[in-house]
């Protein structure tokens, strides 16, 4: 089975059901299937074949999804490009991928035209939104070809997507994701399309991110209606949930915070919502606690994963977001909600190891490793980086530190790169941040290591106060005094207006270290 079967199966079971809703327009599964065939046949006529790379540079739109399935059907490789990338980053990714064809949103054409001379492998550029002089137009391609089924012999191990992930250092890395990785995920975790069940997914996470792709593929396999937003905007999100009677949504933590903090939150009827999945960045306890409180009818799921694992590998399920039971059970659940990423999914193996690669005991912190059909086999054309993250026996080093409790729940303890080492003792920034963020005057906080002659590093709290609040460094440090072991307490505090974050909301600790880490 491969990812093209997701659309085939759903189209066979519910052809007349809305597949995509975007910009006031709707396409049924049958219509999407037809357009996918037309586009696939067009690409074949253009000389795009098995293994060729086809890039898309745009915000979420129906053509993005159609292009994915068209490319997949002819056995080519889909390269979703970060629309926020600067010209030189785009040039790097497109040449590294050796893309043959590009589909580009009109607003990005100027950038692409600028870098085109540096992209000798690109043979065709097609605008997505409207015709543009000097290049092809996506809709013309679709209309020019028959809707005869286009197929190709596709092996489980064949690559379907080449996705670029930007780490905190160096150039973006190309992660080849196989058909099998996504098939494994959906078969284990998603119910297939059913004529009796109609669900509606609101997709705001960008499709250049693995979370967006995974959500899209799961929705198609499940025969759900995909309601697309170009980009997240909170008031539009609230309105769309109500108007389209959305049942499922995926949000990163910063999006969820904006939703629940929005003054118009109570003005919209969100009762159709059944499930909110969140991930892509750590979720502050205060945010998820408030979300549960203000949307008690919603089932929340924390999904943890990486591009290298074809997205979700562990989940903290809805039952773990319901704080009830005995005193002991409630305490356990609160702890899990605070920092657990849940348990591994059925098709994933997880182990936690020390620096020497030996398994650690329960409750002991080590690096989280993952194995299984979802894991990439290595970075695209980068043996050196591959050898840094893949062990010889096929385990992926996630770069995340964590520990497992006696019930099998995994807890995060920061990134390997972000770990603070003070006098030989490891300090997890996230543990200290959780304490800081529980201070009534603190909006958000990040903890970094500052160079220290005596201890090697000392923890420094970088704090954003709530609007209108004032606090001293001493006040903040005193707050931590009774809540953290001595060696973990911040030795200094810096107050700033906002934490630097990437588009998915992850705090960029490297930037903070560059500014404040020298002591």
């Amino acid at each position: 089975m491969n990812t093209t079967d997701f659309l085939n199966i759903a189209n066979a079971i519910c052809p007349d059901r809305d597949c995509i809703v975007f910009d006031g327009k709707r396409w049924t599964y049958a219509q999407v299937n037809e357009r996918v065939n037309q586009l696939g046949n067009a690409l074949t006529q253009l000389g795009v074949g098995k293994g060729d790379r086809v890039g898309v540079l745009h915000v979420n739109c129906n053509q993005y999804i159609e292009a994915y399935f068209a490319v997949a059907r002819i056995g080519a490789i889909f390269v979703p490009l970060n629309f926020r990338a600067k010209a030189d980053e785009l040039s790097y990714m497109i040449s590294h991928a050796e893309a043959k064809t590009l589909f580009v949103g009109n607003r990005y054409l100027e950038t692409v035209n600028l870098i085109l001379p540096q992209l000798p492998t690109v043979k065709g550029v097609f605008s997505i939104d409207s015709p543009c002089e000097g290049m092809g137009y996506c809709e013309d391609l679709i209309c020019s070809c028959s809707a005869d089924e286009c197929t190709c012999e596709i092996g489980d191990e064949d690559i379907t997507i080449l996705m670029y992930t930007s780490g905190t250092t160096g150039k973006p890395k190309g992660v080849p994701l196989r058909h099998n990785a996504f098939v494994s995920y959906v078969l284990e975790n998603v119910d297939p399309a059913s004529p009796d069940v109609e669900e509606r997914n609101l997709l705001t996470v960008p499709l250049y991110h693995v979370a967006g792709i995974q959500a899209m593929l799961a929705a198609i396999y499940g025969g759900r209606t995909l309601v697309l937003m170009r980009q997240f905007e909170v008031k539009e999100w609230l309105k769309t949930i109500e108007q389209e009677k959305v049942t499922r949504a995926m949000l990163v933590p910063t999006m969820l915070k904006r939703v629940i903090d929005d003054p118009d939150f109570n003005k919209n009827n969100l009762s159709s919502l059944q499930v909110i999945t969140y991930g892509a960045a750590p979720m502050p306890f205060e945010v998820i606690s408030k979300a549960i409180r203000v949307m008690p009818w919603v089932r929340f799921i924390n999904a943890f994963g990486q591009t290298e694992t074809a997205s979700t590998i562990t989940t903290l399920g809805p039952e773990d977001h319901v704080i009830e039971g005995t005193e002991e059970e409630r305490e356990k659940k609160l702890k899990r909600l605070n920092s657990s990423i849940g348990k591994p999914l059925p098709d994933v193996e997880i182990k936690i190891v020390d620096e020497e690669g030996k398994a650690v005991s329960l409750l002991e912190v080590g690096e989280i490793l993952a194995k299984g059909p979802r894991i990439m086999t290595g970075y695209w054309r980068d043996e050196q980086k591959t050898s840094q993250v893949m062990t010889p026996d096929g385990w992926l080093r996630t770069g995340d530190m964590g520990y497992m409790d006696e019930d099998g729940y995994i807890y995060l303890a920061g990134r390997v790169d972000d770990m603070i080492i003070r006098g030989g003792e490891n300090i997890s920034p996230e543990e200290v941040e959780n304490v800081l963020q529980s201070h009534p005057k603190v909006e958000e906080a990040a903890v970094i290591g500052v160079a220290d002659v005596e201890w090697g590093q000392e923890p420094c709290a970088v704090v954003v106060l709530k609007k209108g609040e004032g606090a001293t460094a001493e006040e903040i440090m005193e707050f931590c005094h009774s809540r953290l072991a001595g060696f973990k307490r911040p030795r200094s505090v810096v107050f700033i207006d906002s934490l630097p974050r990437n588009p998915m909301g992850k705090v960029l600790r490297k930037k903070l270290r560059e500014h404040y880490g020298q002591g």
Partner: protein
Amino acid sequence: MANQVGKRYVCKKCGAEFIVTRGGNGTIHCCGQPMEQKK
């Protein structure tokens, strides 16, 4: 037994699972016996 579109059938003997993408009047067999509809 009519096989309905979207319904899943499982073999009680070997565990194989099928999903019907086009219905018909026949019965799906596996391991020499009719498959059961998955609830």
